[in-house]
Structures are given as C-alpha cells and as structure tokens.
C-alpha cells in the first residue's frame, strides 16, 4: 500500500478508492504534545492546498492542508476527543480524514516515502 507525502507534512494512503489522510510522524514530533484537533465536516469539499483541519500543541497552532482535492466522507472523531492520540500513532490510528478524490492524478504527483525523507532531511 503506497503512502505519499506533501511538503506540508501530510500523508495520504489510498484504501479502496478513498484517500486516508494524516500528519507525518516528523510533523507530530515537531509539534510536540497535541492538545487540540479540529476536523472538517463530513460532506465538505476541498481543493488541493485548502485549509482542511487544525492541529495545536501547547505552543502553537498549525493548519492541515488538503493534500489532494475531494470530498470528506469520514473523520476520525477519537483524535478530536483525545488529541494525544496524534502523538501516539500519527501514521496509523491517528488518521485525520477519509476523502473521496476528485482527481486521481494529484495523488500520483505527491512525494513517495524516499522523496519525503529526503525533503525532511534537506529542511533540517
């Protein structure tokens, strides 16, 4: 199962035609302890790059951008109820949203794991 990444540190994984989206372990570590998560409404549509969700640590608030365009079909309410889950398993159980893509080509244009690792390294 391929996971792709953005320069804003979101990850996207295609599962049964839906894009599962979260923030990278690197992003979670940089943020520190997450204390607040705001998720979008199911049914809402986003264009690639739109503000889609918010994640906040004690220190700061960060936007989570839509990595690809599409419509929200599910949100992970448990991470809004218990934001610390984002630090525990950012790449797995703490996914943010599931989105029905409107343009499959946008997924293919994102970085793969090796590309993202190199990007993170170059930004250090």
């Amino acid at each position, binding site marked *: 199962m391929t996971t792709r990444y953005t320069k804003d540190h979101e990850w996207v994984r295609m599962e049964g035609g839906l894009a599962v989206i979260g923030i990278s372990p690197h992003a979670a570590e940089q943020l*520190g302890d997450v*204390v607040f998560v*705001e998720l979008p409404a199911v049914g809402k549509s986003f264009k690639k790059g739109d503000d889609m969700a*918010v994640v906040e640590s*004690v220190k700061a*608030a960060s936007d989570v951008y839509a990595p690809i365009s599409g419509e929200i079909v599910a949100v992970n309410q448990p991470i809004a109820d218990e934001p610390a889950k984002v630090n525990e398993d950012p790449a797995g159980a703490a996914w943010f949203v599931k989105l029905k893509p409107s343009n499959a080509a946008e997924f293919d244009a994102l970085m793969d794991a090796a590309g993202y690792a190199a990007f993170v390294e170059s930004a250090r």
Partner: protein
Amino acid sequence: MTDAGKPLKRTPLHELHLSLGAKMVEFAGYDMPVQYPDGVLKEHLWTRTRAGLFDVSHMGQAFLRTTETARGTEEAHAAVAAAIETLVPGEVLKLKRGAMRYSVLLNEQGGVLDDLMITRAAMGSGDGMLFLVVNAACKDADFALIKEKLGGRVELEILADRALIALQGPKAAAVIESHFPGAATQAFMSMRPVMWGTSPVLLSRCGYTGEDGFEISVPNADAERFSRALLDHPDVAPIGLGARDSLRLEAGLCLYGHDLDPSTSPVEGNISFIFGKRRKEAGDFPGAARILPELTNGPRRMRVGLKPEGRAPAREGTEIVDAAGAKIGVVTSGGFGPTLNAPVAMGYVEAAHAKIGAQVFLMVRGKSLPAIVADMPFVPHTYYRG
C-alpha cells in the same frame, strides 16, 4: 536569526542546554531552550508537581547605587529610592532590607516600558543600593533610560558576569534548603546573599510560575556547575521557555511586550497593586496625569482572564467580540493550560465587558467561540507564606 542579523547571544548555560537535548530558539537575541526532550506538556506538569529549573540568564541584572551620599545609611537608601521612584510608581522608600517588589518603568504617557523586580540590599552596609532584574528584550533600553534620567544621582552596575537560574515548584524549597540552609523558611519576595562554596550568590524567593520557588543569581563561571548540582536532585528537571510561558499564563502573570507595552498603563494592565499608597496620593510618577484619573474612574479597557468554553485555544491576536459581533478587545496571550487541561487566555476588553463572569466571544479561524471573563490566576498561586 535576529532583526539585525547579528549572531545570537548565549547564556553561560548554553552548553548545558545542548547536552540536555534542548530544542533551541531565538528569544530576545539569545539562543534559548524552548523545550527539552520531555516536551512542553510534561515540563509544565513537572514544575507544578516537583521542581523545574529555568535558565533566565538572558534577563538583565544590575545594582543601582546612590552617588549622592555615603552608602550604609538610611539616608543612602532614601536617596536611591527617591531616584528610582521618579521612574516607577511603587513604594521603594519603605522597602525593608532584603525585600523585593514587582514594579514597572513608566513613560511620560503612563505606558509601561518594562516590568521589573526591585530589591533593597539585605545588609545595612548595603543601604543605598538596589538590585534590579529586568526583561531581556528591554534591558539595553531600560539601562539607557536609567542612566539618562538618573545620571548624577546614581551609578548603575550592569551584572553581565552573572547568570540567573530559577527553581520553581512545590519541591523547590527542599532542594534549595539542601544547598542553602534556612532557605525553606526565607520570606516570599525576599533576597539574601549566601555562599555556594566560594561563590557569592544572591538568593531570592520569587518566580514567574505561580509556584513557590527561587531565583538565584550566580557568577557566570559557576552557573553550569551550580545548575548541574540542582539537576542531580531527582525532583529537579530542566524546563524550557515553552512551559515557562504556559506556567505564567495559568498563573495570570503578564508577559512584557504582549500583555503590557508602552501604550498600556498599569491600571489597564490590571496590576494596580503595584501603586504605593503614598505614590498615588503624591501622584509623583511619570504619566500621573493619565493614571490618576484611571485609578479613580476606572480605565477605558482592562486586562482580563478568558476561559474559552470548548477545547480550542485562542492565541495572541484573536479578536474578542460581544454577542452582536462588535469588536470589544483582543487576546494578548492565549494557549492551552496543561494543569487545567483546557484552553486559557488573557486579553484587553472595553471596561463594560471587564466583569468576572461576562460572556464574550473569541473569533478563532472565522468562528465565534464563546468564552467567559474569568478571575486570575487560573491556577492558584502557592507562594510561601510562612
């Protein structure tokens, strides 16, 4: 990175921070630890339950001495007190030996140029001398102002050769007592000179977290060794600027440059406790023409505590609006309070809304979130009261 592109300054504990795995950031021109590997949340809670060690060496320390009369007499104290009282609205003259006060430097418009601690020398032989601690970002301007305004009356000795280390939290007194016998029963807001081995130390019982604690002025050369000696205690952990900010926010304490600035008066800032009774009656401080009517009639706007009703933090700059959506103020500090496990903020609102329990709304990302004007501190202070 600094505004001027100059290299960042370092405190004597810089290497210690790096060896402890700190994440470093620029603050007031210094390369400072924002957090250690435990992170802001754990560091905050550690300080509330045990003892946190903070490097505050970037702050400005100075001795102010009268040059008008021989030191070591009550007259000398009166002279140096009269000099500093031309810049601050607090009662300095009646300070007892070794007693410290929180105060502010005022501009001619009654705005706050900086907040600071003023301590009278502990020994009779030191009468005529005050110990000042000012904010890092303001220290050059503060010291220049003091020299300009008080030149001829005082000499200012800037203590660039001293580090300042804070130990804060319920276990701080026991830890400090083990190094300086008698510390556990030292009065809150008092300072005394003590020795750490051969090192002359100024031990003050005060802080910026709402907890009991101490600030210890130590010669630069001994700062790391002293800090490591404190850190050897199992109840002591290093704490970065991130938790320092969330701790002082929960304690309802102002951060200069955010909650106080040259446009805000101490009355607006809700720190009117700093005005000495004699000083109010005399009206003999800068900006009295603005401040005295504010004290009598109330200010136009005032700093208040804010408790957002949901979980979303409201950060600095967030607009405060009334039920009709009209702007009534702005958040000056806001975030998440780990002790409360809830968001907390402070900000300035128009006087009509500055009542405990008043309903206001915070405009966070275009949404209007309900909040209540709340009493401060958000977390009760646990200062030592004997």
